[in-house]
Each structure stands twice: as structure tokens, then as C-alpha cells.
């Protein structure tokens, strides 16, 4: 194989709600189907070294508040390394709790969980009124994105660029009309589903960003047959558009 990517899954033992490991499957399979290597590295709570130097894509999923707090503590040791990775155009996908952890803090009624301060965003939880349901986004770069949200947190993304405009659903805070953040090659979002299998354009964009960063001569990914992926996404768009 000419090309190969190292995909790091951070704390799958702690943050593993809502089938988010499907995102890892999508990243992996869409490389393998194109004859590109995919090396999956699971970093669990008992692991004591994350190799940011050789990481090409990092995935951080979502979990309950208690697990998020554990991950916040574990990740704080890598705060600077993670920041350098992102600033140097490292590709990363953060979903739900993982997204919240990229900001300054996540405040619940009981306590405040420290974020990694990669993004200038803040989240305050309103557990009594969770934002739940199917979501459809419109993005200039990725077209329509479909997923499912289920979060108590209200995220204020300040001056950041959102991932997309909300066509159906609640989004970052239920009011702004926007969902997620895209900053350099970091994508933060509340969308489960899981997100990537149904949204292959977004998945391929992450892969392509990582491949271009690693291999200077890399031009573009070969097309795949996405009939099934498109049907799954269009089912949501057709049935849950407002």
C-alpha cells in the first residue's frame, strides 16, 4: 500500500455512547476500500502515552458526565500536545461530550469540567431540557448532513465557524440556528447517528485532509459507490425536514 493513516480512537472504554464507534468503522473502511492502509490505535484509560507525532486522525466520542470528567482529567496531561496537533492542521473529529471538551469548560448544575481550550467555546448544561431528535444541516462544503442529537449542553461557539446551518433540529444551543464547529481540520459536533457512515462526503473530507497533510503528492480520493449511504441520509432528509 502506497498510503496509510494512523487513526487514534481516544478512550473508547469511557466515551462510547450512541454507537459512535461507527465513525471509526467508516474512516477505516473507506480507506481500505480504496486500498489505503488504516492503522487503528485505541487509547484506553489505562494507556499512558498518546503518540501525537504519528497520529493522522483523532476521534473522541461522547459519554455521560461522569465519564467526561474522567476523560477531562486524563486528557489534561496532553493539553499542549493536542493543541499543537490541531494548530498544525492535524485532523480530528469530536462528537458530543468530546466536542464540549474541546472548549473552555462544560458546566453542569453540580460542577464544572475543564476543557482542553482548543476552541474558544463554552458549554452550560440544562439537563432538565435535553435537546433530542433528528437533525439536518446545510453546509457549503459538505452539502446536507443528517444525524441525531441528544444533549443537555448549550454550546456558545462565539466567533467560530459552525459546521452547518440547522435546517431541522436544535443545534449548538437550540437558538442560534447553527450546529458544531469547524476549525482548521478539527470538526466538533453534537451529531450522532453515527455521523460518518451516513455522511460519506464529510467522512472523505476528513480522510483527504489527513492524507494531504501526510503525503505532499496526494491529490484526491477515488470515488466509491455511495448509493446506500445516500439512501440512509436521504431517508432522514425526506422524513424529518421541516
Amino acid at each position, binding site marked *: 500500500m502506497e498510503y496509510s493513516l494512523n487513526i487514534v480512537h481516544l478512550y473508547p472504554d469511557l466515551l*462510547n455512547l450512541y454507537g459512535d464507534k461507527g465513525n471509526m468503522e467508516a474512516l477505516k473502511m473507506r480507506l481500505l476500500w480504496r486500498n489505503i492502509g488504516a492503522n487503528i490505535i485505541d487509547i484506553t484509560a489505562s494507556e499512558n502515552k498518546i503518540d501525537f507525532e504519528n497520529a493522522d486522525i483523532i476521534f473522541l466520542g461522547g459519554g455521560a458526565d*461522569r465519564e467526561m470528567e474522567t476523560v477531562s482529567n486524563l486528557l489534561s496531561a496532553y493539553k499542549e500536545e493536542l493543541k499543537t496537533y490541531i494548530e498544525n492542521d492535524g485532523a480530528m473529529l469530536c462528537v458530543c461530550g468530546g466536542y464540549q471538551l474541546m472548549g473552555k469548560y462544560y458546566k453542569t448544575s453540580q460542577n464544572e469540567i475543564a476543557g482542553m481550550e482548543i476552541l474558544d467555546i463554552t458549554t452550560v448544561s440544562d439537563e432538565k431540557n435535553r435537546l433530542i431528535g433528528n437533525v439536518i444541516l446545510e453546509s457549503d462544503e459538505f452539502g446536507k448532513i443528517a444525524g441525531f442529537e441528544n444533549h443537555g449542553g448549550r454550546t456558545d461557539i462565539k466567533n467560530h465557524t459552525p459546521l452547518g446551518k440547522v435546517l431541522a433540529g436544535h443545534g449548538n444551543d437550540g437558538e442560534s440556528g447553527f450546529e458544531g464547529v469547524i476549525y482548521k481540520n478539527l470538526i466538533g459536533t453534537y451529531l450522532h447517528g453515527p455521523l460518518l457512515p451516513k455522511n460519506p462526503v464529510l467522512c472523505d473530507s476528513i480522510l483527504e485532509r489527513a492524507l494531504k497533510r501526510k503525503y505532499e503528492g496526494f491529490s484526491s480520493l477515488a470515488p466509491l459507490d455511495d448509493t446506500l449511504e445516500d439512501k440512509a441520509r436521504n431517508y432522514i432528509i425526506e422524513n424529518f425536514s421541516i
Partner: protein
Amino acid sequence: MRLILAVWAAKMASLLGKIMGKKSSSTPGAVALKICPDMIKRLKKNITGKVIVTCGTNGKTTTNNLVYASLLKCGHSVLCNTLGANMLSGVATVFSDSCNLFGKFKADYACFEIDEAFAVKVFDHITPDYIIVTNLFRDQLDRYGELETTVKLVKSAIDKAPNAKLILNGDDPITAQLGKGRDASYFGISEQVLSQNSETRDGQFCTVCGAPLSYNYYHYGQLGDYCCTNCENKRNKIDFEAKDVSLENGLSFTVNGNQVNLNYRGFYNIYNVLAVFSLMSLLGTKSENFNNLLSDYKPQIGRMEEIDLGKSVILNLAKNPAGFNQAIETVLTDKRKKDIIIAVNAEPSDGMDVSWLWDVDFERLNDETFNTLSISGKRAYDLALRFKYSGIKIDKITFDMKESILSCLETDSEVCYVLVNYTALFGTQNILLGLKGEKEEKK
């Protein structure tokens, strides 16, 4: 007077439902409660014996119906929400249905399955003497929120019945924590039975200190012989323990030395039976008669329900990762060449979110006995993607369940398993029974 009016109104609603061809298991009760909000409180004095409630993510309906069958077999009269309408209105319907026109009935026992989220509300109306909790798994996160939310709801419900005896799954660290400071008995399976694979384990962290749990052996989900790697928290002493388990030809095992033989499938059913054994022992029934007590129990629809269409078709309900993984485990114990149909809907009562499909170990189905796979249900495409990304070949994707079943009848497989979630169940059963009827007419 209001009470009698309420009962009459409920009976009218029930009758109307019947005329319209619907089995109404919750509307009549809802009507009655509107007229007489304290109807249940006022009627419960008609129950002379104990009130038993079953809660938990999986196995509620089966456990509750086993309790019902056992109590009936003992010669008691029993109130029970056999149809699985497990919210307040469902319980109210059982009460109003049982009344005569004077608002009276006679019952020795009452047993109800109650939805985890609604137990708090139901316990304002009726206080149970025994509470069985089967297990607590991730289920319908869009409805219940995180698992911790469900645990809190169950906890506040049992707090409302401080004198109730708890009967808890001692293999489940999440369920077992409910017994702290309470009068509780625990049931469990005290030996390794299944292969130790790596399916999603929900409660793999200690409920007391948050450290990882370690297991001597585990059964499925977070169930097993666990202990915390950091604090004192570990599996309780088990009061009613299953051993010598065999899954060949139905189920057989011993409970505290008593042999139990059952002709239904599914490892998870051992837990349902253990819960009932515990209850019946605590009620003082003689345990040597236990096999006999269960003999009248007929599995509810879609609980590994076998329908003969020339080829054996087995219908099973599975609603969440733990349920599906157990269904898969059961399918794998059948070594015949098989077709598999899976259908998933995402109606409000199923949970609107299908992301949990990625937490089911569908890959395990791909053994040497696996022949064809059909995908159906409203979320067929999501399910299809789940298989596509696991590298499992899909033979058919269709919204039409009948088409799926008919094409499976044409293959050279010996058996067809149909795994469906909640709202897909009744439609599928109708199709299967319809096909059975057609076949018998032809004879």
C-alpha cells in the same frame, strides 16, 4: 359513586375498543383516572395478598407473566397486566377491567410490570410488597437520557416503597446497587457459561468509585461475577444461584440444588426464571414443585416464537444492544443452516435514535451456518450500512417484510430467524400468522 362511574366509563371504553376491533390495554384506565384520580388507591383493598412489581430494561414482560402463571398454578386469583401495558394507565385498566359493575373484585395477588420511568408515578397509587429488578441496560437513550437517569428514576421509585422486599439481579452491578440499606435478595448465575467476547459492556465502571471493574467471568452486558479494582464494591452474596447450566435442548440448570428444565430458548431466560424462583421461595411456595409451576407459561408473542411455515420461522423481539446481543447468542446456539431477517423501526415507542445498532455485535452472526440476510423495517438503510461497514453480505433490502419472509422460504436453509424491534413486531407476527393460515387452507 365517582369510583363506580369511573369503572363504568372504563368498561364502556373497553367495549368501544372491542367493537372497533382494538385491544385497548391503556385507554380505559386513562379514562377512569380522569374521572376518579384515586381509583387504584380505592380499589387496591380488594387485593387480599401481596402486590408484586417487576421493573428493568429487558425481561419485564416475560418475568411478570411467569410470576402470573406461577401464582395461578398455585390456585390463586391474580391481577396482572399480561399485555405489557406498563404505565399508570395500563395498571388502571387492569383494575377497572377486573371490577364488577359495583366497583368490586376479589384477588389474592397482583403482579405488574412497570416501565422504569413510570414506576415513580405508579407507586403513588399502589405500594408494592415485592419489587423485582431484572437488569438495567442502555435503552432508548432519546427517551430516558443516560443510563444514570434511569437508575435515579428506579431508585426514587423504590424509595417510595421503603418496606418492600427487593429481588435484584446480583450479577448486574447497576441493579445490585439498589439493594444498599434495603431488605434485598439477590439472584445470579454462578458459573461461566458463554464464551467471553467483547460486546459493549455498559457498567464496566464501579458504581461506587468509578474505577474499572474486573470480572472472574461475565455473562453479557455488564452482568457477571464482578469486583472493583479500587474499592470494596463487589458482587453480593447470591441468595438464589443458578449452576450446572446447559443451553442444549431448551434450558436446564439448578437453583440452590433444585433442577429446572424448560423448553424455551435463550440464556437470558435463566435470569427471568431465577427472579420468579426467588419470589416464589420468598412467598413460601415449595420449591420442589417449581418445574410444575412454570409448566402453564406460554411465551408472549415474539419471544423466540416458532411458527411452522413448512420451514421453521422463529420470531424474536429485540429492542436494544443487550437484547439484540442475547438474541444473536441464542441464534448461534442453533447449528442449523439459517436465513436471517432483521427489521428495525424508529417510532417514538422504539426510540427515535438508531445509533445503537452500531453497539450490537452483528458480526457474530457471520458463522458457517449463516446463509442469507434480509434487511427490513423503516430504518432498513441504517441497518444495511451497519452490515456494509462490517463486511457482511446483504442479500435483500426491502421495506416489505412479507417479501423478505417469502424469499427465505425458497432458500435451502433449514430455519429462518426474524429479529425485529418493538413496533415491527406486531406487523411481522400478523404476516407470519397470515402465511400460516394460507398454508393450512391449502391442505
